[in-house]
């Protein structure tokens, strides 16, 4: 069966696209699937850092597209999971070095070799975004429970629909249960009310994610942390399993909901 191309995007920067890509890649590869993570953020690469593979880079995405090396030469094998691979972005070029057509061609070349091709999209709605979405079979939108991130996610969902890559699925990242309970943060239900797309994961804010990223070993590697488990659940849902959502917000009782209503003045 040819591999599936999944693009992870968000519109707004800093919501956790790269972390999500690395962790979902790790989670899928740890079930034995053949996975490649492709960093489409040319000029601001960091998927390699989060995956701890920076020091192995010889060739990058632009080298492949411009024919300076074979695809196989640019693939970096993960040191922990034999089925996990990375194609890094170029650091010294910019988004215009690659076209949407190049990306489609590259993805088609990889489909027979892998089960999953995960593309880490750059922030924004310009060329880099269009490059990342062009070859996608499925688009995952990452957002945080903040009004500005949700607004950008809404915009991106519209653009993904316009590219006929929809319906996109939603990852709600960095949810702080405490704040939701106090009514200081949008709850999952509030975000879904605006975005009205299928939810595929809710990831709690978790310090271990940051620490793990800094060490180049994604949290989903051991699956002990709450966030690591959440990313593993996303991977299982991608594989078609029905996995119940963990109650990240922790007993959203009547009191919490009342507090939220009062604070937001009824507006989401």
């Amino acid at each position, binding site marked *: 069966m040819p591999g599936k191309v999944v693009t992870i995007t968000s519109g707004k920067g800093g919501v956790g696209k790269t972390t999500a890509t690395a962790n979902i890649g790790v989670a899928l590869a740890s079930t034995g699937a053949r996975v490649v993570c492709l960093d489409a953020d040319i000029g601001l690469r960091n998927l390699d850092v989060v995956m701890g593979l920076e020091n192995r880079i010889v060739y990058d995405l632009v080298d492949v597209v411009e024919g300076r090396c074979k695809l196989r030469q640019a693939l970096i094998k993960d040191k922990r999971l034999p089925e996990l691979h990375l194609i890094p972005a170029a650091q010294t070029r910019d988004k215009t070095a690659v076209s949407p057509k190049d990306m489609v061609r590259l993805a088609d070349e990889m489909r027979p070799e892998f089960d999953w091709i995960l593309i880490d999209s750059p922030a924004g709605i310009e060329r880099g975004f269009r490059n990342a979405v062009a070859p996608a079979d499925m688009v995952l939108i990452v957002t945080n429970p903040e009004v500005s991130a949700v*607004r950008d996610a*809404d*915009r991106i969902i*519209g653009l993904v*629909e316009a590219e006929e890559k929809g319906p996109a699925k939603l990852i709600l990242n960095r949810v702080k249960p405490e704040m939701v309970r106090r009514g200081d943060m949008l709850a999952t239900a509030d975000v879904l009310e*605006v975005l009205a797309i299928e939810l595929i994961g809710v990831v709690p804010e978790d310090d271990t994610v940051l620490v793990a990223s800094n060490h180049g070993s994604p949290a989903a590697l051991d699956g002990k942390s709450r966030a690591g488990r959440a990313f593993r659940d996303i991977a299982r849902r991608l594989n078609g399993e029905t996995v119940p959502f963990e109650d990240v917000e922790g007993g959203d009782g009547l009191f919490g909901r009342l507090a939220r209503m009062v604070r937001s*003045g*009824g*507006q989401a």
Partner: protein
Amino acid sequence: MAGPLPIKGVRDGLLVTLPGGAWHDVRATLLATIDARADFFRGARLALQMEDRALGAAELGSLRDQLAERDASLWAVLSSLPSTRAAAADLGLQISLTTPRASEEDDEAQPEAEEELPQAVFLQRTLRSGQSVRHPGHVVVLGDVNPGAEIVAGGHVLVWGRLRGVVHAGAAGDASATIAALDLAPTQLRIAGQIAVSPQRRGAVRPEVALIRDGQLVAEPWEGDARR
């Protein structure tokens, strides 16, 4: 040049009736009208009712270019004069509306714009941030209008869902236009030349309609007989 130009929404665009007088002045009035409502005319298809004005292909061509600079396209020229019609046809413009009734008989062109907005568009989807709908007639949305989305309509706007974006009804100046929604919580509302932001909601969500009453843009509970 007294008063605004009569503008009607027709099936395929906007029909503007030009007054008599020197062409130079009439053209200036038309362009000034468009500049003053740039938002409304952006992307519009225009049909111009010329009556018996004599215009050559050069004049029509330069008008078309000036309209194009304003993001409006000249689509049809209606005239009772064969020479003007021939010039328009030479430029590839239409010389009649697809709805024959509007051009032939209504030559006296009563500016009773409101009942002449025949067509409503119906959208069954969520309008998302960055998406925009412009229509000379009415707009009906079965779905939500999210923050960052906008609707600009010549007539009424009806949202069967949550309205959280920006809506401009009666954008060509019709102050009798209304905006109704099951949950009226817009970023901003405009009817004709009036602008309002929605106040903090108190109490439960209920259907509301916004309209101009005594010169003020107000929102009231939607009782189903909004066209008072």
